[in-house]
């Protein structure tokens, strides 16, 4: 059980960092949609287009680190099996 908790903590922490890194290393808040602009040819106006995309932010990093921390410290509460 202790090993499972430690492995889960490591997986959550590393997975969170990996997802954040691959998701664009965004230092702001997590986003579920991203804005892009297109120029409308006739009027020359900037059209705002929202594209559904998950961009993990700093809050995502903190949440995964906190989850990993909880699992890590929980592992100390579990007694090691005596053989």
């Amino acid at each position, binding site marked *: 059980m202790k090993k499972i908790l430690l492995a889960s903590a490591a997986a959550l922490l590393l997975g969170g960092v990996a997802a954040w890194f691959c998701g664009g290393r965004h230092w702001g*808040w*997590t986003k579920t949609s991203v*804005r892009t602009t297109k120029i409308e040819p*006739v*009027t020359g*106006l900037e*059209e*705002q287009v929202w594209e559904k995309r998950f*961009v993990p*932010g700093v809050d995502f990093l903190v949440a995964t680190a906190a989850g990993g921390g909880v699992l890590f410290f929980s592992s100390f509460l579990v007694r090691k099996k005596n053989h």
Partner: protein
Amino acid sequence: MKTKLGIIVGLVSLGSVVLAAPQKFDFKDPKSVNNIVFQLDAPLESINGTANGISGEVTFDSSDPGSINGKITLATATLHVGNPMQKEHLHGAMWMDVTKYPEIIFEAVKAENVKTSGNDTTADVTGKLTVKGITKAVVVPVRITYLKDRLKDRIPNKQGDLLVLRAKFSIKRSDFNINARNGEDKVSDEIQLSLSLAGMAAK
């Protein structure tokens, strides 16, 4: 001969009067390009968003651009930001309270410092801005572009003119009771706004 000439001259004059007459431009955009971009400075990153629920009517006379007047309405439910929690707060009672105040209205009253060059006119438009039920007078620097007979290029099979309005200005959220209790240490009092609007007058 004189009578015929008189009729022709009369028709031409009438035509020019008709052509120069003020036109009403509808700003409910079937292509949903019309938008307002807003930005507020905040500690981690600025709050950036858009809204596209725009409607309204503007009267514009190409021979007298300074006489521009009209009303633009924004549906507050269309305010959008990329972070879902921020969007929930933005629509909530503390911020825009979109259920109680479904519209933001700008009503143009007069235009000053009008300068026209070709199709483009710049002017300082004074109007009444109503946000969350509070109405304040604001002066908005506007760039107006009149595109004669260009509606068909935007919407096929429709004849008419286009009127493009662009404006950048800022308002204070404390003036309109937008989360007024939240100090400037968290989110700036100033809201920067950028308007990109196209209206059409079909013939």
